[in-house]
């Protein structure tokens, strides 16, 4: 087969919604785009454990603590599913981790904001996981098989994440004045970063058109953002909280909410590394990696020792 016929075969598969699998021929750019997207997705899960990890020891009840622990453990698992999917494309785990630590690979900017109060655990579950789910559900049908399979598993597990967050917000909103204020304050701080999670608006998103063509992405950033805003505004109203956007208004004509101007300067500033916690998050990841090096080495040596001992025992029995 010629390169052209490989390309044709690939295009036909995409057009007929046939998944691309690891050993199938694929264009280099498709592979690169996937590696970038999947590894950044994986890094987001791993770095995303940090803001919530901050509150595990201070959860207000045993129930909340068990739930938060389970959620953070899920995120670790989701990172692993995604790293594995990226590895099928020919990048190693160590290379990906190196790219994260050097700053070459990005992760979702939302995790560069601090978690100041317990209500932030509610806001993160409700808004951040809510936005992530909105983004991830269409990815269950993404064209690359291993990525799609990882997303199916992740979406199934994540539905409790958003519910537990909303429950925390609801409980606080029904509580004392101080608790209600805390919930509103968390919503105020997390709302805008959450709607920025969908990425730059379509006009400024250089990869979107190609990713849609390859059926890696199924909806544009702005379409997903609008969907998220439409459902979330109703959810806020239901528990008596106010979305911090004075321009938010129902538009009869479009059947959607109109919303205020997003501060893209802030977005790009955080992406570039100048958010409130960028340095702290990366330092924590690097420290964990470096200080865990001896554990990784010891496990390898231990397994070799165990294998050698087993072989020796067998030999002595044979003799």
């Amino acid at each position, binding site marked *: 087969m010629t390169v052209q016929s490989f390309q044709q075969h690939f295009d036909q598969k995409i057009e007929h919604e046939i998944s691309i*699998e690891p*050993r199938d021929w694929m264009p280099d750019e498709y592979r690169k785009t996937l*590696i970038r997207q999947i590894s950044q997705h994986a890094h987001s899960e791993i770095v995303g454990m940090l803001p919530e990890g901050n509150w595990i020891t201070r959860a207000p009840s045993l129930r909340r603590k068990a739930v938060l622990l*389970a959620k953070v453990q899920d995120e670790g698992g989701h990172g692993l599913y995604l790293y594995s999917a990226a590895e*099928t494309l020919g990048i190693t785990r160590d290379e990906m981790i190196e790219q994260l630590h050097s700053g070459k690979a990005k992760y979702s900017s939302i995790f560069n904001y601090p978690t100041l109060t317990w209500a932030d655990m509610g806001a993160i579950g409700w808004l951040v996981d809510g936005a992530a789910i909105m983004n991830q559900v269409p990815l269950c049908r993404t064209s690359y098989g291993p990525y799609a399979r990882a997303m199916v598993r992740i979406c199934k597990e994540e539905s409790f994440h958003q519910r537990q967050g909303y429950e925390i917000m609801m409980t606080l909103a029904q509580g004392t004045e101080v608790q209600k204020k805390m919930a509103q304050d968390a919503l105020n701080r997390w709302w805008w970063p959450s709607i920025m999670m969908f990425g730059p608006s379509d006009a400024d998103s250089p990869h979107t058109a190609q990713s849609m063509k390859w059926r890696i992405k199924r909806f544009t950033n702005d379409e997903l953002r609008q969907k998220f805003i439409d459902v979330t505004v109703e959810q806020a109203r239901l528990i008596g909280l106010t979305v911090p956007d004075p321009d938010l208004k129902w538009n009869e004509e479009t059947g959607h909410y109109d919303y205020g101007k997003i501060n893209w300067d802030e977005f790009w500033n955080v992406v570039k590394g100048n958010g409130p916690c960028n340095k702290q998050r990366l330092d924590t990841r690097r420290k964990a990696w470096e200080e865990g090096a001896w554990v990784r080495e010891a496990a390898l040596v231990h397994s070799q020792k*165990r294998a050698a001992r087993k072989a020796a025992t067998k030999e002595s029995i044979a003799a």
Partner: protein
Amino acid sequence: MIRKHLYGDYGDREAAGGQETNRNTASEWPLWEVFIRSKAGLDHKHAGSLHAADAQMAIENARDVYTRRMEGVSIWVVESKYIHASDPADAEMLYEPANDKIYRHPTFYNLPEELKHM
């Protein structure tokens, strides 16, 4: 840096065409493929992959990564490098001959309408 024929959820390193040596994975734990039996009576099914120092650790990690919600009652792990896979380029030759042998399916046969159980 991108290499084209590599392991993942198939794992045939012989097909990697010697590119293996270029990779800086000396300190990486080996890759394992995980198969899970969701309940007694069903087959083990591929669930995904993970890194572990040895088989015992692979099973322990698989338990934490792939069975947090009662997804399994039994786990198999096999080091990815021991899996051999058919080549996608051979797909036509291997699987298409089955297309014109529809008489292997029960629906191929014309039987009287009155026939109830068969």
